[in-house]
């Protein structure tokens, strides 16, 4: 898994397949980074992601709850149509902004 920390902003480059198996890994690693680097903003980058299920949605929700308590925000970039549909269905779009290519 690839991560990038810039000041208080963490970018999580999500894997090719985001399921329960690697969601666990992202959860542990990102929570460690959030704590250690006083992260307030998280960017979920879906560029490489071709597959996602409800475990991926769970990772976003979980990170949001954590960062929200600290007064932070989460957002998503490079989401394809299918990802957007899943995020909308689960209501995550109400708490998270999705940035389009040209923004």
């Amino acid at each position, binding site marked *: 898994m690839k991560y990038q920390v810039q000041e208080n902003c963490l970018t999580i480059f999500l894997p090719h397949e985001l399921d329960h198996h690697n969601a666990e890994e992202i959860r542990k690693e990102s929570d460690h980074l959030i704590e250690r680097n006083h992260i307030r903003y998280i960017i979920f980058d879906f560029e490489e992601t071709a597959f996602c299920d409800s*475990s991926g949605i*769970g990772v976003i929700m979980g990170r949001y709850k954590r960062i929200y308590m600290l007064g932070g925000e989460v957002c998503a970039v490079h989401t394809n149509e*299918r990802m957007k549909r899943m995020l909308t269905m689960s209501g995550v779009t109400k708490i998270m902004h999705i940035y389009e290519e040209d923004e």
Partner: protein
Amino acid sequence: MENTNEMQLIFDSRSSNESFARVTVAAFMTALNPTVEEVSDVKTAVSEAVTNAIIHGYESEVHNIYIRCRTEERTLYVEVEDKGRGIEDVEAAMEPLFTTKPELDRSGMGFSFMEAFMDGLSVVSEPGKGTTVKMKKIVGKGRKLWTAQPL
């Protein structure tokens, strides 16, 4: 009966087998000449059912998960079974955002995604005996005969 095909799969309830399970079902359905979208729908649904069996059915213990697939004409039938703890209130479990394990970052969207991406879903469960998720996908539903099929 002609134009039917069947397949069964038995594997350990380890999270590393989730991708194996969905890719195998996806490979099995290619005979129906599905679109990329239809394959993704089935992969997501199978992944949800298998993840449920691992996390909720067997509560992370390693036992067998059974997948039975059948194609009939243009329809794929998939059953995912575990012999785990079962579901007490199936109706409640199928509500969007319902989850018994929020501490594990479960979103509660599993059954909702299965319902949204498949053309039929039913859940049979008995507490202490296990759960069977039965799903159906009709391939080429919106496709007209005279239009070229996408590669």
